[in-house]
């Protein structure tokens, strides 16, 4: 990893394999390994069908792995599932509930699994429903809830027993911008209170805003697991850099002058000016500006492109296949 001090890992996944069906069945996970340090918000990314949901279901003790080990807070999900279940709060992608029960009844039902006494469970449920902003519909049947309300109820149920690890599958999917911001803020808040968050999401911008570390899975294998910064610099190493030039009056002579600079491998016109391809490790920005100005162009801006998480994702998953 970084080489710095690494806190104890809350999630440790080693060589995880999952084959659906009998021998020769679908191999959903093929030796997945990654770890999530305590207190982290870990982004888990991958195209559809890459194995994200299967991994989450194994972490949640719902599905038994075919091979490999998964430890959560030091407990093996297969050997000691009860200890794991007590420590995780799961917010599934599909927020589905029993349509004829109220939000409050749901939380009371789920609380009964954790041995929370009835009266305390009711108090806690009412508190939580208030905290997630659906206290006013606590006694209404879930079938009358909007998608956003169900998402909030899903969050509330995952927090009932104050778990140390939150496993969230697409928490912001289907939400309006306010709802997405609400969830983002809440995840930061919970993380601030010491909870580790394992966040699977399709919304790369959201992951980029929230997570320091990410794991990217593709075709049942982890193709990258590191901090976003490290991944970005690793991916950039050796790769050409694009300089986006915004300018007017770029003549063919100007382009010829730019391409003659040592380290520049190409230049193409764009709507606003010019994209200049530069070999990695060379700092030719000043030379390019100078050449353009000398050739009579009116230079407005020159910016080196940064590799976004989206670029990384697409590069690592061979086009994303979302």
């Amino acid at each position, binding site marked *: 990893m970084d080489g710095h001090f690494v806190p104890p890992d809350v999630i440790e996944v080693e060589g995880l394999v999952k084959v*659906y069906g009998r021998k020769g069945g679908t191999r959903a996970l093929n030796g997945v390994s990654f770890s999530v340090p305590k207190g982290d918000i870990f982004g888990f990314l991958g195209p559809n069908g890459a194995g994200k949901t299967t991994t989450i*279901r194994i972490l*949640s*003790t*719902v*599905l*038994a792995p075919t091979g490999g080990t998964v430890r959560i807070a030091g407990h093996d999900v297969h050997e000691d599932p*009860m200890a794991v*279940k*007590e420590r*995780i709060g*799961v917010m*599934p992608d*599909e*927020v*589905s*509930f*029993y*349509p*004829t*029960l109220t939000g409050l009844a749901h939380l009371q*039902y*789920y609380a*009964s*699994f*954790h*041995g929370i006494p009835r009266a305390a469970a009711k108090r806690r449920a009412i508190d939580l429903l208030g905290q997630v902003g659906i206290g006013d519909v606590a006694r209404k049947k879930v079938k009358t809830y909007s998608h956003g309300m169900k998402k909030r109820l899903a969050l509330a*149920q995952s927090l009932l027993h104050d778990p140390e690890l939150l496993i969230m599958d697409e928490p912001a999917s289907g939400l309006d911008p306010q709802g997405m911001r609400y969830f983002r803020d809440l995840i930061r808040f919970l993380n601030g209170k010491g909870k580790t968050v394992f966040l699977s999401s399709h919304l790369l911008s959201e992951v980029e805003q929230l997570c320091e570390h990410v794991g990217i899975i593709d075709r049942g294998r982890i193709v990258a697991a590191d901090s976003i910064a490290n991944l970005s610099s690793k991916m950039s190493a050796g790769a050409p850099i694009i300089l986006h030039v915004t300018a007017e009056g770029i003549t063919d002579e100007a382009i010829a002058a730019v391409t003659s600079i040592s380290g520049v491998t190409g230049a193409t016109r764009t709507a606003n000016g010019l994209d200049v391809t530069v070999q990695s490790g060379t700092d030719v920005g000043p030379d390019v500006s100078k050449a353009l100005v000398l050739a009579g162009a009116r230079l407005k801006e020159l910016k080196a492109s940064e590799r976004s998480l989206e670029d990384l994702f697409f590069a690592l998953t061979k086009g994303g296949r979302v």
Partner: protein
Amino acid sequence: MKAPAFLRGLVPVGWHEFYVNLRSVRMLIMIIVLALIMVGGAYGIGRGSSAGGPSIAPLVAWVHPAIGTSGEHIAVAWVSDPFGVPLPGATVSFTDLSVQPPAPLGTTSADADGFVRLAVGNRSSIGITVRTGNAESGSGVFFDRPVENFTVETRQEALDTDSVPNDLGVHVLGRAGVPVAARLWLNDTYVKDVDSRGYGRLELPLGPSNVTIEVAGENQTRAVFTSKPLPSPFFTVGPDFVLLIMAAGFATFVIPIFAVVVTFDAISKERVQGTLDLLLSRPASRVGTLLGKFLGTFAAVALPVTLVNLAGIAVLTAVSGKGPTGSFALAFLGLSLLLIAFYIPLQLIFSTLAKTSGTAILFGFLVWLAFNILYPVITFVLSSVLFPNSFQAQFQFSQVVGLGNPSSIYTQLVTFAAPEAIRFSFGGGSTLSLTAVASAALVWFVGMLALAMWTFQRKAAE
């Protein structure tokens, strides 16, 4: 109190299942269907059985040929209830049967002692009809044999509570058609005298007996025979038989439907609506979760079924005038629960395997169809092919093969519980021992529940 780890989740899941199922629309529908069939059946058949009427006629005409002082024929009728109590005022009609068409000879009323006498000249065949209210009874008097110094009429019936037709009513009149002192002997042992109206009743032992009537030193001996009653038509057997029809005829079909309708999607619905993963990620063992599902749905079905069954028995008791045998009624209530307990684990297995609601419904329907229609039909066809010449062997074969069918096990157990007199009257009865059938029941239930747990453990999340 904390449940052992392997049972964790049983109580929450059980309560949840019970609560959600009891409040479901399908539960309401099934209760109405069950009540219509069980309570309605009890009312309809029970009422039908009482409309069939008691087997004992409410009035009896004891008719005698008598000879008047001038040698004329006198037709005598003494009208009483079956126990020898006279019915004064009963309407009595006389008809001359020796002409065609029979000619009415007159109608009169029985006197204070229940007697009616009519001089009929030299006519030899007289029809006598007696009536009180709606009840009517008829008999004939014939003068074609020499009239002795006394005449005797007998009637053998089941008049007391033992249900055995061993009560012999005897009515004796002198040659002149009036009561005389008469002594009654049974198998050469003096028993009693007839009363002042000529009536006496003897209780006969099983088997053949000789009954001797002695009047003024003159004897007349009659051979009589008493046997245990054969299975009677149901309307004479009463509420036990109606309950047998309710248990073996109705409950055996409708209770499995009830269990299937409530359980068919107990697990598949959670999968389809997306609540299964949330449930499985809770601190609950798979065994505890499945047992909770079983106990919750079982209780949710058992409660209304028992209440409806009790209502059926109550209605049956009300319309028949008496209740079914207590032990049989209790066994029926218990065996209904067993029938529910047979079908729920079976349905839980299929509900675990079904990936969609459609498949779950199909599995539910097929399970019911398989054990209530296909299995019996295939067994019947096989038994006919294998044992074409022996009904006994076919019956035995069906019962042995039936041990693989929960509905058949239930029916066999019901017939074991039924009173002996009606046990074989509904295609029931068992050639197997109670131990064998009860063991099959236990194996079925435990086996299916274990298989349901195994399936749930292996397949719930896949």
